[in-house]
């Protein structure tokens, strides 16, 4: 125990860095595990995506930051930042694209999905997303909302 305290006294900066590395590394791998479990367990593509893309990209970010912390060099830090930046920039877009495309090709949606306000909003010809009817319903029109009714 005293050994440890001496260690703490002499190398506290390095120990904090190490602890950070460990933290990042562990959370990164756990996030990956989370993503993997999610992608296996979830029942439709949207929920899988929820699990996979987010946890996955965060996991990468954690692990890459762990590398940056570990090596303590600017080059590595810059590179790590680039990776994180790029992943954070692209993942949401990729997810959005796939989700949207999946909706176009009518990927089956989990039957527990309580409400789908997107239903019927896409123009079949042009793939443009119309939302005018939402405005109308918000303005108090009696027209029923085009979304799915909630399950019984």
């Amino acid at each position, binding site marked *: 125990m005293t050994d440890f305290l001496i260690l703490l006294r002499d190398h506290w900066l390095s120990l904090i860095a190490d602890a950070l590395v460990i933290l990042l590394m562990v959370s990164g791998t756990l996030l990956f595990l989370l993503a993997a*479990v999610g992608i296996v367990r979830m029942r439709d593509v949207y929920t899988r995506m929820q699990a996979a893309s*987010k946890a996955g990209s965060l996991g990468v970010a954690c692990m890459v930051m762990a590398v940056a912390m570990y090596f303590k060099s600017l080059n590595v830090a810059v590179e790590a930042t680039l990776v994180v930046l790029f992943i954070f920039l692209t993942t*949401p877009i990729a*997810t*959005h694209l796939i989700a949207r495309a999946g909706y176009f090709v009518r990927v089956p949606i989990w039957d*527990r999905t*309580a409400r789908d306000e*997107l239903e019927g909003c896409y123009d079949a010809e042009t793939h443009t*997303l119309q939302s005018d009817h939402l405005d109308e319903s918000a303005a108090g029109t009696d027209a029923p909302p085009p979304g799915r009714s909630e399950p019984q």
Partner: protein
Amino acid sequence: MSKLIANFLLAGAWAAAIQPFNAANLAVGFALGYIVLWVASPSDRESPYFKKVFKGIGFAFFTLKELVVANIKMAVWTVMPLKRLRPMILAVPIQEDLTDTEITILSSLITLTPGTLTMDVSENRRYLFIHFMHVDDPEEAKRDVAEGFQRRLLEVTR
């Protein structure tokens, strides 16, 4: 924008001069640069830049917090029995005058936060269609998005 660039340049110059050129020195350089800029532009103290830096930092921490919280939620959802989940796709109204960049950042941040996923932006840019992992009250969920991310983002960008 020019002030941001100037601030970064100052940070870089500091790190290069002070050696070694590393992250810590850059951070110090940025802080010093901020002060220098503030001091050196007495006529322009009202420039939104000086506030935005803090808002930006705050926004970053907010996002970080959201990420951590949401991830924990997500972890719970992932391992708990699936029967308890209630996913939804909701049309979340957004402010009408958002720029392209703001919409993109907003939707990206929403997607990055676990539990929500922007599926698309409506043609008239009034709605974000978001897939929620679990929603108890749809209206509250919509409000959260508008109040949370949208507001804080606009604080930084405007």
